[in-house]
């Protein structure tokens, strides 16, 4: 008999050895197609990150695309990375044209613990969030015990991208 609680991690549960080193779950292109199936182009965009004075870690450099169907703006796609516990988690965030979250995907996970953040039920909590929501752990985003650092840093990453979008992209000429 083998049983391992993923959400929630069982209190006092025997922790099975996680072997999830550097697992790539999705490429950027796959995540783009999944979030915007109707898009005909993904146009890479730049934003002046330094002008925003967001409380971002050194070296923060998200890649940004506009998802378009011909001339119509469908939304925005970000590929970013945060540190989980000690290794980077590559993730992607898709926002619709109004800035609410369509999808959060974990693209690559390198750590041995905390990979529960890639489970769909946890990620789905972000769907529909906007800059007007707290997007904060233990407020409107539930923590996963045993994966707290991954949850916290990924949640902060999403919050940062929502700010970036609201302040630097939403007003930009489409």
């Amino acid at each position, binding site marked *: 008999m083998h049983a391992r609680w*993923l959400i929630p991690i*069982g209190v006092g549960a025997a922790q099975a050895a996680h072997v999830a080193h550097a697992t790539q779950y999705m490429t950027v292109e796959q995540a783009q197609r999944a979030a915007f199936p109707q898009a005909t182009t993904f146009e890479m965009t730049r934003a002046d990150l330094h002008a925003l004075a967001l409380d971002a870690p050194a070296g923060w450099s998200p890649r940004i695309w506009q998802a378009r169907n011909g001339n119509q703006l469908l939304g925005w796609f970000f590929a970013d990375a945060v540190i989980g516990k000690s290794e980077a988690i590559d993730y992607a965030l898709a926002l619709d044209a109004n800035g609410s979250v369509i999808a959060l995907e974990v693209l690559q996970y390198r750590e041995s613990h905390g990979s529960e953040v890639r489970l769909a039920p946890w990620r789905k909590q972000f769907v529909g969030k906007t800059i007007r929501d707290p997007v904060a752990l233990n407020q409107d985003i539930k923590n996963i015990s045993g994966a707290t650092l991954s949850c916290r840093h990924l949640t902060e990453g999403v919050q940062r991208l929502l700010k970036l979008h609201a302040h630097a992209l939403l007003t930009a000429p489409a």
Partner: protein
Amino acid sequence: MQRNFASRAIDIAFAEIAQIHRLMSFHEPGSDLSRLHRARTGAWVSVDARTREVLAYALRVARESNGCFDPTVAAEQVASGYLPEPHSAFVPDSNASWRDIELNDDGVRLCKPLWIDLGGIAKGYAVDRAVEILLETGAPQTCVNAGGDLRIAGPRAECVHVRDASGAIAAAVELGDAAIASSTSVPAHATAAHRDGENKQPIEGGVTASVIAANCMTADALTKVVLARGAASARTLAAFGAQASVHDLRSVRGTFGVAA
């Protein structure tokens, strides 16, 4: 060829499930339980080996849970309208309990007038029998899911999501060669679905208990103990090598009874 083979095995498994239902149904007049309820109190009644096996296991769960699991709460379930009134030779004794059921090699007798309901355990047994049949026919990987009571057998582990009473996913668990069953207690205004065998009171509502065990009969029966007892069921869970998670509509209340 392969497909024919698999579909034949599945047909046999379904037929076994139907047979278990016929044997252990509370209300079908031809079931083993109906024959027991029509018989004179104290008389030995010969039953199918499968009915005997489930009864023996039900008594073991009753013993290990100090009577919290009790297949004789049927009289109260009938009184509250949750079960239909059976054709019976007697009126059940309100002091009767699981201790008044005796088994011998091929039969059962009721030492006091009582009604037996195997609704809390027979579904899990049906899942186990279906899994065993599929494995015997050579299926390398099997999953039998009877509306949430499910068992996975084979080398591949699978992820199972547990939903709360509203249908939202409350928990996820990776299972291999194991069974999981969930029971939800209904709100107090609805008809009582589960009843505590010790005080015969309905279990209060809105809580879901999921139990993981080596087989589905164990998981099915123990969900009722966990619903009634919460964390105090840990000792009973340990006796069966089982573990449980309990959640309500707002949050996970706890995960306990994890076998070492």
